[in-house]
């Protein structure tokens, strides 16, 4: 056995030890966080393939980065941060230039309401969708959104205000009809 083989084999063997948690811990974390994370990704990116890819990559990076012990809420925010960074990278490379598709509403209770939401989201910019989702679904405050998206708190305040006005304008007719 020579050095050229020994070093990579040693590194490969210890890569498993580099992962921060065992399978059972990961299973619990995944069960608690994967669904909200995927919902965020699908609504912000508008594409299932992107949501699937980014989610998988998010967990891989999370495991590889060996963060310090965190409570569930912090872990969740950390995952959203990784996912948002990955989305930002894709937007920068213009990989997701296609318009999000309006998916079939399926057999939900309120098909019209779902379609309204999808149409509204489609008319918003990805950044606006992202901010609205983090603020109104994930209930993050401005500082948390800033940490997740990498923008300044001041920018978040302004961008979220504009996104809220725009979304409210797009949603309002549907809400008014529903009473």
């Amino acid at each position, binding site marked *: 056995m020579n050095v050229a083989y020994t070093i*990579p084999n040693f590194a490969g063997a210890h890569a498993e030890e580099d992962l921060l948690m065992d399978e059972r811990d990961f299973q619990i974390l995944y069960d608690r966080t994967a669904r909200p994370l995927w*919902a965020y990704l699908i609504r912000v990116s508008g594409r299932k393939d992107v949501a699937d890819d980014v989610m*998988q990559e998010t967990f*891989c990076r999370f495991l590889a980065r060996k963060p310090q012990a965190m409570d569930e809420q912090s872990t969740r925010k950390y995952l959203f941060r990784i996912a948002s960074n990955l989305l930002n990278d894709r937007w920068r490379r213009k990989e997701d230039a296609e318009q999000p598709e309006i998916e079939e509403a399926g057999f939900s209770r309120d098909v019209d309401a779902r379609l309204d939401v999808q149409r509204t989201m489609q008319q918003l910019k990805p950044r606006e969708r992202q901010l609205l989702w983090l603020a109104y679904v994930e209930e993050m405050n401005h500082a948390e959104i800033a940490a997740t998206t990498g923008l300044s708190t001041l920018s978040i305040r302004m961008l979220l*205000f504009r996104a809220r006005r725009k979304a409210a304008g797009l949603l309002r007719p*549907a*809400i008014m009809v529903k009473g």
Partner: protein
Amino acid sequence: MHCEREPETVHATRHGSCSADLLHHIEDCPACTEARHIAQALLPEAVFLQSTVDLPPAMQVWESAQSKAQTFALERTSRVLTILKAAGFVYAAIFVVWSIRTFPIVKHYSILPAVTGEAASTSLAAAVIGASCIVSGLWYMLRKDKHVKALSHSGLS
């Protein structure tokens, strides 16, 4: 523009527990009214998406993360080996050029005025031994690289 009670409004909308005071405030506050409308639209959508999504099993993601971690670790160490190889080649090349120039001179004169003929011979011998070790190591590594490449081309690795 922005209301301090917006997060409270969103929280109450999510949990369906709006106090009379907050309801009264929402009626008078355009920011909170909009926030409530948007939350009312997005929250059921989030619930629906989360309940219908078909996620890959956790173990599949776990295994993928493990394999990626191994790949990163291999890349990291391969980089060190590449640097070592390059350094070896540079050393070998410099040694060859230097020895071609030095061997004829050392037969008759000292390399440096301070180094005697005997010391120069010892230094040269040490350099030759060093170069032989490095070149043989490089040759061995290159042979192994060739072998690994042949295996990967045949799909056996």
